[in-house]
């Protein structure tokens, strides 16, 4: 248990510290890297709770896709972060008050759930009921009870993909693309052309 407690405090501290560094780092690329650190340590917290599926999702979805996307945006868009940060001191009191308000609210909600919520009445929810780990439990129902929703959601994503392509893809006629079949079928006869040039005229393209 002591090991678990140490791991919890270590991960929780890293999460909060990384979170603070996300908003205070000067370099936006560093901010994104700290965000990734925060995601990783939060995933560790999920593992401690026994929710290994959520932990994997957090890493695959947030670190693998969202944070990398952020990184691309930060690097590709020329956003002047120094300018964005200019009113920092001016807005600090108001922003701090809002943050404090939300923090108090969260503590109250957590306290209410802990004393009156389902967990208080029925004991802590079990991450692996009946000895089945939660990844396996989800896998058992995903393609059986929920196969209809699962496939429909897949179709929704397909529509999103078709839509993005329909609305943005343009076939430009002048673009030179590699055509391997054409390259292989090329013979010295087709690859070479003998041109008779008259003196002083040159050839047109």
């Amino acid at each position: 248990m002591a090991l678990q407690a140490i791991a919890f405090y270590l991960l929780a501290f890293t999460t909060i510290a990384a979170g603070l560094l996300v908003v205070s780092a000067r370099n936006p690329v560093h901010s994104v890297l700290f965000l990734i650190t925060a995601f990783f340590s939060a995933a560790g917290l999920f593992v401690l709770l026994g929710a290994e599926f959520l932990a994997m999702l957090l890493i695959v979805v947030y670190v693998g896709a969202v944070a990398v996307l952020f990184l691309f945006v930060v690097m590709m868009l020329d956003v002047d972060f120094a300018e964005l940060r200019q009113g920092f001191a001016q807005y600090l009191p108001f922003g701090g008050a809002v943050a404090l308000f939300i923090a108090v609210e969260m503590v109250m909600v957590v306290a209410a759930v802990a004393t009156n919520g389902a967990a208080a009445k029925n004991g802590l929810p079990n991450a692996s009921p009946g000895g089945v780990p939660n990844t396996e439990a989800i896998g058992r129902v995903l393609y059986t009870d929920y196969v209809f929703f699962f496939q429909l959601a897949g179709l929704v994503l397909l529509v999103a993909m078709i839509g993005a392509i329909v609305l943005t893809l343009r076939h430009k006629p002048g673009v030179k693309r590699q055509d391997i079949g054409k390259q292989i079928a090329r013979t010295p006869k087709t690859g070479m052309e003998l041109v008779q040039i008259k003196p002083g005229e040159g050839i047109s393209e």
Partner: protein
Amino acid sequence: MTFSANFSLVLPEIVLAIAALVLLVAGAFRGKVGAIFTLAAVASLVAAAATAVLGPHGHAFNGVYAADAAATYAKVAIYLSSAIAVVLGDRWLAQRGDQKFEYAVLVILAALGMGVTASAGDLISLYVGVELQSLALYVLAAMRRDDAKSSEAGLKYFVLGALSSGLLLYGSSLIYGFTGSTHFSQIALAAAHGGSHGVGLLFGLVFLICGLAFKVSAAPFHMWTPDVYEGAPTPVVGFFAAAPKLAAMMMFARVLGDAFPGSVDKWRQILVIAALLSVFVGAFAGLAQTNLKRLWAYSSIANVGYALLGVAAGGEVGLQSMLVFMTLYMVDVTGFFACLQALNRDGKPMETIEDMAGLIKERPGIAVAMTAFSLSALGLPPFSGFWSKFYVFKAAIGTGDVMMQWAAVLGLVGSVVAAFYYLRLIKAIWFDASTGSVDAPSPSARAVGFAAAIFSFPIVLVALIWIDPAAKAAAAAFGHA
């Protein structure tokens, strides 16, 4: 029920999904749309409609999907109207040299989504169906991406559609939170027992109704409709005004008829207010319109109002009147937009009332068809519009509720006001001087327009012999989730 038996119930959806995937791959490799491609898309939609009719009835996947008479009725109408949209749209885009194979694929996927909402037995399948349908429709609205108005239509539809999905989800989460289930049958049980969760459940229901009202473009959630209809390609508008409207009305019927059949007194007043607002917004705002697509957008808002009045009447008679109303309206509106897409002057679409001046001398056939649609939308007997309104008002008065009877009277007043703009269109077509020659209409659009006009009168009198019992059986299926 065995696992594979579930799949035999969702066969229409499977047919459409496979057709969409095959057509997508075929289109991506061949790159162009031929007659065979369009034919295959139409054939798959007709095949899906046939499987819906012939397939077994029952509840699949623990009741999240209902294959009953109501779902069958709606699916046949939705799939056939989508098939017409595929034909008209492919021709229209081809004329403009902007043909895309994705058009047919997106229409099929939208039809798939609409079918899922029509047979939803659970809040999750309702929502996923809505998203599948809406996402495809957003793209269809923005299909002509080089046209600024089309892009505007797509963007507006997308932003407001996302907002309405948010309302829908918020309502669903409240309902789930207060009843503990997303199943319509479980929600109906919890709602029937009343108790402490009454107010929270009511809030959820109101949010859900608001989200659905957005989708069906009922006032006061109608603002996007005129802009989207004006900007989107004409055949796509004809599609928007027909199948998705029926699908959204089916969602109303599913949620209110399956999940809240016992709380009629709670949701009736909300629906009556939305219905009357729609009727009057449609009637009065339509007076100021000169663009026919905008005019028909307001006309569709008003018509949705009448259909909602049918839902508000509730019970078997009310839902039957809604289904009959929507079916007859779909034929009318499809025919009208088919005529509108057939009319071009010097290669430019004729979209304003002035453009229609003297049409009777130029194109007498289309002029007579458009006159029939206007008279039908006006509700003049013996056209189909009269019979559809007759069903709704009969259902509203038959409830014996004083509020519903007054609502029917006000609805009649609204339809008298709206008569002005329909008559103005007829006047322009028949009596104004022509301003130039009209291009030859495309045969497919003209054929659809004529067929719909002949349906509007006199075929409707014969067709009602079949539509009436089919809609009655469909309406009887609600409330057995």
